[in-house]
C-alpha cells in the first residue's frame, strides 16, 4: 500500500538533480532543444481514487522546452530552483519560499528581464521541481512559512532538542513547514483534533482540552499548511491516531476538511505524503445548528459562497456521499453559515466542556 511514503534520502535527491542536469547538457551538446517533463497539474489530470479515498495525479505529462517563447521563462526558473536546491543540500541550509524568491529574483545583465517578478512565480517553479524529480520541496531544503500551533501529550525530538508538547505554555509548539526529520519520542495522546481557527485553538488550549480528552490539538489559520498535513499524516500512520476536523459550517470550512482527508488539487502529486483519508469531520454540521440552537447566530451566505458550495457538492469525492449531500442541501436551504465561535453564546467553555466531548463520545462525525 502506497498510503504513506517515507522521506527520500539526501543522496538520492542529489543524484536525481545531477542526472537531470546531465540530461539537459547532453541535449544541448547534441544540438537538441532541451526539455523537461512536467506532470500536468490541471483539473483534467487530477483523478480521485474512491478505494483509497485520495486525489492523485494522472499520467498526463507536458514537455516544456527551453527554446520556446512561452516556456523559456518557466524553464529557466525551474532550473534555477534545481541549482538552488543542489547548493542548499550541499551546504545543509534551508531557506523559506520567500528567501528562495529573493535568491532567484535578479535582473538578467544587459536586459530589463527579472528571472522572477513575483513570489508566485518562484513558488510555482518550486512546485514544478517537486513534480519533475518527485520530491517534496522540504527535501529540496525550501520551506514554507510556518503557521499553526500544536499542544498535547506528545514528546518529540527536533534537531536534537527534546520537546514536550504539553509543556509549552500558552503558545504551544509552532509547526515548522518541514516535519520530515522530526522524531517522535513518546506519544500518549489517543487522537488528534484539528481546528480551522487559531482563536478556537487558544480556547481549547486554555481549557486544557488536550489534557482532559488526552489528545493533540492542532490549528492553523485557514487551509492547513503542508507541515501540518504531513504532521497529521505521520501521527495517523505512525501511531494510529484518529484525526478529527473541526471547522466552520460553510463551504470553505468543509473544503479544509476535504483537503486534509483527500488531498488538494494543487498538490495532488503528493497526496501520498499529505492526505489522511481516514480523517473524520466533527463539526460544525447542520444538525449542530439545530441541536445547539445556533439558528439566531447564522450569517447569510454570499453569492460567492453559494457558488463555492455548488462546486464542492459536485466534486467526485462528495457526489456519492449521502451524508454530505444532506449537509449541502441543508446549507443551501438555510442559505447561511455558522462559525465555531458561535458556540460561545452557550457559555465560554461550552465548546471545550460540552460540545467536543459529547460529539466524540457519541461518535457524531461525518466521514
Amino acid at each position, binding site marked *: 500500500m502506497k498510503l504513506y511514503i517515507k522521506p527520500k534520502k539526501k543522496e538520492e535527491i542529489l543524484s536525481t538533480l545531477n542526472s537531470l542536469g546531465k540530461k539537459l*547538457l547532453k541535449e*544541448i*551538446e547534441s544540438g537538441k532543444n532541451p526539455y523537461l517533463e512536467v506532470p500536468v497539474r490541471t483539473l483534467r489530470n487530477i483523478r480521485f481514487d474512491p478505494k483509497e479515498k485520495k486525489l492523485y495525479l494522472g499520467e498526463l505529462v507536458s514537455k516544456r522546452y527551453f527554446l520556446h517563447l512561452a516556456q*523559456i521563462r518557466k524553464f529557466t526558473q525551474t532550473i534555477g530552483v534545481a*541549482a538552488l536546491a543542489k547548493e542548499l543540500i550541499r551546504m545543509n541550509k534551508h531557506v523559506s519560499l520567500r528567501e528562495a524568491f529573493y535568491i532567484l529574483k535578479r535582473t*538578467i545583465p*544587459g536586459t530589463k*528581464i527579472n*528571472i522572477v517578478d513575483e513570489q508566485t512565480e518562484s513558488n510555482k517553479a518550486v512546485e514544478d521541481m517537486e513534480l519533475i524529480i518527485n520530491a517534496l520541496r522540504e527535501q529540496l531544503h525550501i520551506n514554507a512559512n510556518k503557521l499553526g500551533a500544536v499542544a498535547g501529550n506528545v514528546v518529540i525530538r527536533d534537531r536534537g532538542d527534546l520537546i514536550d508538547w504539553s509543556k509549552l505554555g500558552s503558545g504551544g509548539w509552532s509547526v515548522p513547514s518541514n516535519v520530515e526529520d522530526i522524531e517522535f519520542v513518546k506519544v500518549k495522546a489517543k487522537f488528534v483534533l484539528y481546528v480551522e481557527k487559531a482563536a478556537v485553538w487558544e480556547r481549547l488550549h486554555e481549557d486544557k482540552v488536550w489534557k482532559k480528552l488526552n489528545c493533540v490539538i492542532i490549528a492553523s489559520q485557514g487551509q492547513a499548511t503542508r507541515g501540518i498535513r504531513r504532521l497529521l499524516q505521520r501521527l495517523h500512520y505512525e501511531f494510529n491516531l484518529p484525526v478529527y476536523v473541526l471547522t466552520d459550517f460553510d463551504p470553505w470550512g468543509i473544503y479544509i476538511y476535504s483537503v486534509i482527508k483527500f488531498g488538494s488539487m494543487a498538490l495532488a502529486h503528493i497526496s501520498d505524503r499529505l492526505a489522511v483519508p481516514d480523517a473524520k469531520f466533527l463539526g460544525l454540521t447542520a444538525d449542530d445548528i439545530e441541536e445547539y440552537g445556533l439558528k439566531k447566530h447564522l450569517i447569510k451566505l454570499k453569492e460567492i459562497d453559494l457558488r463555492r458550495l455548488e462546486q464542492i457538492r459536485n466534486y467526485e469525492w462528495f457526489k456519492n456521499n449521502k451524508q454530505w449531500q444532506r449537509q449541502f442541501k441543508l446549507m443551501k436551504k438555510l442559505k447561511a453559515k455558522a462559525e465555531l465561535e458561535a458556540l460561545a453564546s452557550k457559555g465560554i467553555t461550552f465548546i471545550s466542556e460540552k460540545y467536543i466531548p459529547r460529539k466524540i463520545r457519541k461518535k457524531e462525525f461525518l466521514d
Partner: protein
Amino acid sequence: MEFLAAEEIGKKIKEISVAEFFEKNRHLLGYENPTRSLLTVVKESVDNSLDACIEARILPTIKVLVKPVGSNRFRVRVEDNGPGLPPKKIPIAFGKFLVGSKFHKLKQSVGTLGVGVKGAILYAQLTTGKPAKIQTYYKGEKHYFELFIDVLKNTPKIVSHKVEKVSKNLHGLSIELIVEGRYVKGQQSIPTYLKYISIANPYVEIIFDSPDGRITFKRVTKELPPPPKEIKPHPYGVELGKFKRMLRLTRQKTIAAFLKNEFCRISMEKAIKICKLARLKPTRSPRKLGEDEIEKLYRATQMVKLRGPPTKCLSPLNEKMLIEALKREFPGEFFAAVVRKPSVYRGFPFQVQAALAYGENLNLNGCLLIRLANHTPLLYNAGECAITKAAQQINWRNYGLSQSEGCLPNAPLVLLVDFISVWIPYTSEGKQAIAQYPEIMKEIKLALQEIGRKLSVYLSRKRKIIRLKTKRNIFESYAKVFSEFLSTLTGKKEDYIRKKIDELIKKGVEVEKIEKKLKEKTEIIEL
C-alpha cells in the same frame, strides 16, 4: 412700350470677348488668390515647356526663376531648351485665347485648352500692368517680344519685337512675367509642384531659383517615354452634337467612308454594318443626311460592338523609372510600382500608373498622396478627385497598414497615382481634380491594390524579422542565466555551456536567412 423696351435690351446684347470673360472669371483658371496665382503662373509655363520638349523629342531642361520684386510682386521666368516657336506664331500663341495646338488632337499632353499660359499673361497685366517678355531662338535668330493681350478684342498687342543673330545651335523658349503673388512652402506650393512634376517626368531636369536659393531636381533617366501618337476619335467617345459637326465638315463622299476614315476601330465591314443597322445606304453623302437620319446613324455607331480605342496615344513611364524618381525625393526602405494596362472611359483611352515609397525614415506625418494627371501634379481640390476617393475607399488594413474608416492609411507612405489619358475629365476649369467615372475609379483602385499587395508582403516579412529578432534576443537573455544555473547543476564550465546554447539558438532562429531574402526583395518590380 414693350417694343421699345425690347429694343433697349437688344442694344445691350453683344458679343463678349473670351479674354474679357476670363478676366472677369480668373478664378476659373486658378487665379483666385495670390498664393495659388503665383503657382498657376509657374505651372502653366512649365507645362507648356514640357509638352514642347517631349513633342520635339528633346531631353527637357527647364529653368524656373521666382524672385520678389517689391512687396507682393514677383518676377517669374521659365526657360526651356525646347524647339521654340516660329516668331510669326508668337503673338497669337501668347496673345489670343482659345488658340492652341492641342485642343482638337486626341493625344496625351499636359495642356489642352489653349488657355493656359495666356491666363498667366492676362493675370500679369491685370495685377502689375507689365507686359509678357517672350524670347525664342529660331533658325539662328533670337526673337524678343514684349506683348499684352487686348482684352476686348482677344488679340495680341505687341509692344516691341527685337531680333538678334545668334548661333544656329541655340534652341528654346522663355517667358518672363511680373505678377502679384505670395510665395509659400508646403503642400500646395511651387517647390512641391516642381518636385512632383520632376518625379512624374524623371527625364526632366529642373533648376529652380527660388526666393530662398537654388533647388535642383536632377533627372534620373535620359530615356524619354515613347512619343504619344495622335488617334482618331472612338465612336463611343463622341456625342451627338460633335457627330453632326463631323458629318458636316468631312471631306468623305460616302457615310461608309466617313465612318471608316474619321473614326478609329471602324473597318469598312463594320461601317457597312452600321449603315445597315441605321437603314441607310452606305453610299449616301455625309452632308445630305436629315436630322432623323443623323440620329439613326449615331445610335447605330453606339450599338455596334467595337474594339476599344488604340492606346498608342498614351505614353506611360515604366515601373523602374517611377521607382527611381520616387526614390530620389523619398529615399524610403521599400518601393513598388505598377503600370496598368490601358482602359477606356466614354470612348477615351486612359491608363493608370501608381507607385509607392514606404519608410519609417521618411519623416512623414501619415500618408502622402501625390496625384498626377498626364504626369502633371494636381495640388488643389484633393477631396473631389477620383484618385483621393479611390485611395480612401481601399481597405488598407488588408495590406497590414492601419487606417481609419474612409481615410488614407495611417503609415509612413508616399502614394503616387498618375492618370494618363488623351482627355482628362477635370471636374472644373482649374484642372485640379479628376472626375469620378466608375471605369476610372476601378482602374485606380486596381493599381493601388496591386502595389498594396507588394507592400504587404514586404511588411509581413519585416514584421517576421522583428519577431524573430525579439525571439532570439529573449532566448539569448535567458541563456545567460540558464547556463549559470546549469553550470551549478552539472559542474561544467559556464562559458562552455553558454557557447553551446548560443549555437543552438543560432540554429533554431534563422534571422539572417529571412533578412537576406527581404533585402533582395526590397524592390518588387514587374516589367
